[in-house]
């Protein structure tokens, strides 16, 4: 026998310790820190994204008229220029060092510039569909196009900026072109 009374004789109001239990020890391991880790990773990724945006100053597209006007000032700085390829100006050629290239002219607001492009061309490289070309000015008359002003833009990367026009015009002419096999 002990001094402790049997359980069924305990007075609930007096014998039990009803003081609050100590708090459970904090959770350990990955479950506790995973959300904090995710937030930290997301914050770092957002920081990297913003840094990339701010660092990539070459993304601003200069329009053809602006690029032509500032040609002397730009020198051989690398930048991106946007303009629409002139219909009928595209010609394939071989550079002095043997590399294949495509020469064409681009225009915007009535100003024309000649381009010699050595990179890949887009499937969407089409007349009147604006292209963004990455490169620099070269003072030379070696590849004279529609502009023929003693300069050409040497580019090695081409992107296409499609406009927001999804209308159909001249359906009969499109049908004729399809029949001629101009496109499939």
């Amino acid at each position, binding site marked *: 026998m002990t001094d402790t009374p049997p359980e069924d004789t305990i007075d609930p109001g007096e014998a039990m310790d009803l003081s609050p239990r100590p708090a459970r020890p904090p959770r350990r391991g990955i479950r506790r820190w995973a959300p904090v880790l995710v937030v930290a990773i*997301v914050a770092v990724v957002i920081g990297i994204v913003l840094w990339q945006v701010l660092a990539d100053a070459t993304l601003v597209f200069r329009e053809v008229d602006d690029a032509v006007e500032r040609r002397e000032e730009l020198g051989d700085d690398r930048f991106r220029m946007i303009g629409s390829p002139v219909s009928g100006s595209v010609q394939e050629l071989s550079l002095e060092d043997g590399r294949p290239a495509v020469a064409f002219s681009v225009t915007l607001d009535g100003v024309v510039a000649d381009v010699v492009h050595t990179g*890949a061309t887009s499937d969407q490289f089409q007349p009147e569909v604006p292209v963004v070309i990455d490169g620099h000015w070269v003072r030379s008359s070696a590849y004279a196009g529609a502009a023929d002003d003693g300069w050409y833009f040497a580019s090695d990367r081409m992107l296409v900026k499609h406009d927001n026009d999804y209308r159909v015009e001249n359906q009969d002419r499109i049908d004729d072109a399809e029949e001629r096999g101009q496109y499939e």
Partner: protein
Amino acid sequence: MTTAATESTGIGDGIPATTSSKATKVLGWLTLAGFAVLVALAFAWVPEDTRITEQGDVVGQFDAVRLMFVHVPSAILAYTGFGLTFLASLAYLRWRTDWWDMMAHASAEIGVLFGGLTLVTGSIWGRPTWQTWWEWGDVRLVTTLVMVLVFIGYLAVRRIPADVAVKARRSAVIALVGAVNIVIVNRSVDWWENRTLHQQSTLIARKIRDETLFTLSFSFAVGMVLFAWLLLHRFRTAYLQSQIEELEVNEALAERRAEAGISESPGGRP
């Protein structure tokens, strides 16, 4: 919530056993039927994008244009999800009810889902159209990515252990701040026209042929039905989760009272 089944869940009386209801079943079937019709319209009815220039050149995006019927509705649904999160967060901060907090949480998850889909389909569309999968520094692409990341962060913050009210208040503030970017994303193509490859709005400019416009509008309608279906299910899941957590607390209290040999009073207090 009133139409949900209320059979026994084994976790408590009066708690629905499923997130499904007559309304969600109708919405689910409408979504499936709508998708089937949308696929037929997009591939069989809408012609490819072609135009002919004054010089006689045939230009356009051709079949790639059909990606519009997934990409554009995804973007609209992402805006809707994040916008609803903003409104629900605002309402939570005003009225402090769990209902608004759960609504904000549910719509943010759906917004992230469609935001991710927007980025993926945009990238797939960008390759044949722009000649690139992704362009760092393109304001439309990057602000969209940031918008999705902010709301992923919002969801992560909700997972940090904290008092329910603290967690709800904290995430509501993040949603309000993050929502500012929704406007920036939407307007970026007009504000920084020469810093993005992304086109400006076709619908505002009304430069779209009738078949394409009809199918695009139909894709919005199907997307909205899908959104409502997802939102109802996700909201009910959140509600059930909160009920389970409440039950667990009540069970723990009951256990403590049993240990103490104290009977529960009618008012719920010993």
